[in-house]
């Protein structure tokens, strides 16, 4: 009995790991053989970043059951602290991989800290009220980054808010210039690093969910009062899911930011939070594999629709609405199922689908 169950979740998780590995290997081969368009190649790191964003948000929305509309805020907090870290570290280190790794860890820690600051007070709220507060925090983080000035010179890192009052010495360099964001960064993110980050995050999420803590998180989602009645602390486990998720979003932010030479704070605005939420909902709540597929496809889709140019976002919008209607409207769902049954019947020996 137990063995069968272990196998079922383990097998499902294994399929997900293998899918990511296969995706990585195939693209490495395609790149090596020159079969990937430069357009798609440029999308690989962002896809990895969005996949991590989607699975981490799924931990909060799907596993913990709390709607968050400010996930991009943590991405932003991570991205810009990672930019500062990378900009500074590059003056003393040779290895780009090491710089990226340290920047990602720092970005993760800063985002996790932001997660604690946000999470401790707000996780008492629930439902739409929690959603609006996460939205508000996302906006606040954006406002802060848009007014932040960071530079370094021989004296080390220097910060200022609102106005650029930094007077950098000889050889100094601005890292973040308020609304202009970060410019002239070295693009050190790699597809391989993105792949590693996805695998690490999957490992953490899967193992967390299938542990005592994960059960506590899901118990609180399914029935908070019952969970408390068996001695499970709501604030502790809701915060755990929230902070782990924020840390991952922070690392994804660093990966994303260091893939470009220029990044502005508005790249991580409310729309981005929504975009990621769309990945999660389309992929299925609590379904990590679904999130990965949805994030990858929907990141590529607008690019594939580039030939439609002006129409692509419109098509995307219609796709979203139809997708939701098709998966959630009982009539449409039944209709689609009957069609697929008919097709199966026709393909099979026939006559079986007349019920």
């Amino acid at each position: 009995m137990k063995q069968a169950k272990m196998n079922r979740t383990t097998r499902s998780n294994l399929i997900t790991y293998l899918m990511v590995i296969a995706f990585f290997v195939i693209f490495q081969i395609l790149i090596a053989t020159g079969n990937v368009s430069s357009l798609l190649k440029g999308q690989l790191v962002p896809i990895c970043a969005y996949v991590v964003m989607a699975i981490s948000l799924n931990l909060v929305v799907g596993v913990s059951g709390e709607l968050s509309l400010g996930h991009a805020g943590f991405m932003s907090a991570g991205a810009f602290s990672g930019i500062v870290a990378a900009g500074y570290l590059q003056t003393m280190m040779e290895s780009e991989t090491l710089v990226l790794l340290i920047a990602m860890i720092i970005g993760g820690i800063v985002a996790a800290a932001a997660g604690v600051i946000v999470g401790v007070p707000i996780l008492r709220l629930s439902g739409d009220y929690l959603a609006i507060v996460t939205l508000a925090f996302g906006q606040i983080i954006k406002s802060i980054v848009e007014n932040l000035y960071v530079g370094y010179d021989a004296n080390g890192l220097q910060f200022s808010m609102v106005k650029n009052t930094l007077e950098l010495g000889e050889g100094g360099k601005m890292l973040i210039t308020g609304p202009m964001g970060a410019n002239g960064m070295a693009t050190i993110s790699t597809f391989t690093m993105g792949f590693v980050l996805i695998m690490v995050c999957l490992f953490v999420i899967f193992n967390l969910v299938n542990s005592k803590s994960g059960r506590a998180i899901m118990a609180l989602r399914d029935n908070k009062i019952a969970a408390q009645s068996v001695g499970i602390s709501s604030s502790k486990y809701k915060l755990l899911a929230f902070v782990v998720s924020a840390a991952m979003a922070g690392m994804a932010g660093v990966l994303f930011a260091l893939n470009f030479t220029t990044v502005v704070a508005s790249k991580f605005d409310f729309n981005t939070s929504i975009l990621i939420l769309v990945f999660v909902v389309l992929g299925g709540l609590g379904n990590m594999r679904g999130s990965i597929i949805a994030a990858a496809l929907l990141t590529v889709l607008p690019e594939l629709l580039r030939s439609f140019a002006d129409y692509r976002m419109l098509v995307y919008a219609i796709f979203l609405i139809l997708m939701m209607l098709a998966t959630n409207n009982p009539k449409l769902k039944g209709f689609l199922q009957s069609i697929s049954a008919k097709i199966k019947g026709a393909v099979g020996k026939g006559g079986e689908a007349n019920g």
Partner: protein
Amino acid sequence: MAKMVPLPSRGMVPERDIGKAPILEATHLGIEFGGLKAVDDFDLTVGRTEIAGLIGPNGAGKTTVFNLLTKVYQPTSGTVLLDGKDTHGMSAIQVNKAGIARTFQNIRLFNNLTVEDNVKIGMHNHIKYNTISGILRLPKYWIEENRAHEKALSLLEIFDMQHLAEHKAGSLPYGAQRRLEIVRALATEPKLLLLDEPAAGMNPSETAELMDNIRKIRDTFNIAILLIEHDMRLVMGICEGIAVLNYGKIIAKGSPEEIQNNQTVIEAYLGKKKEG
């Protein structure tokens, strides 16, 4: 059936529990909702291994008493001593850790999780490894998870439910859901188990089986059980002490025989007989 004997305090416990401190002593317990006293001056003593009943007409405040004992609501007056310890200021979580577990009138299971996971969630505070060991799958994780698995199955065995371990809790039939709630509560290793209408929706043969099981639970785990129930056959059949609640106040206490013959209780249930 055990004989009920009075304690130096105002409560009564079964004779065999007389040497031991009672598990629960509630005195002057009360709560107001916007001026309305839903429960008022509630006194109850439950012996160490007693099966006690709390009965009364619909809306009498029985579930509210449970919510006060388990701190879903904070009482506005009175004290609750659990195993001699004052539970004043404790949260629902702390009171569970201190030894009270309960089931709910409107079943509250973790519907999307398996039966086994529901039981393991009940064991949460008795599974000893931290989040990091869980994520990194350190040896402690495997030892504790295996132990939890065995324990969960043995608890499910009380109701002969091991074969349902892999099913989603939400997909179980109603009676099985009620039984699973009891198992989950037992998994927290309580000293006092509160059952809110455990026989609701069960047929007579299921109820009879439940009665045996409640006795079996008391005897195996050596705990006290306080239950709310409308099925008088069950209440009169297994409860040693019974308290009757009406309009938030206790109107009678005693053994099943005493309660059955109590005029106030009969009036509370059937209404007053018109004089003349």
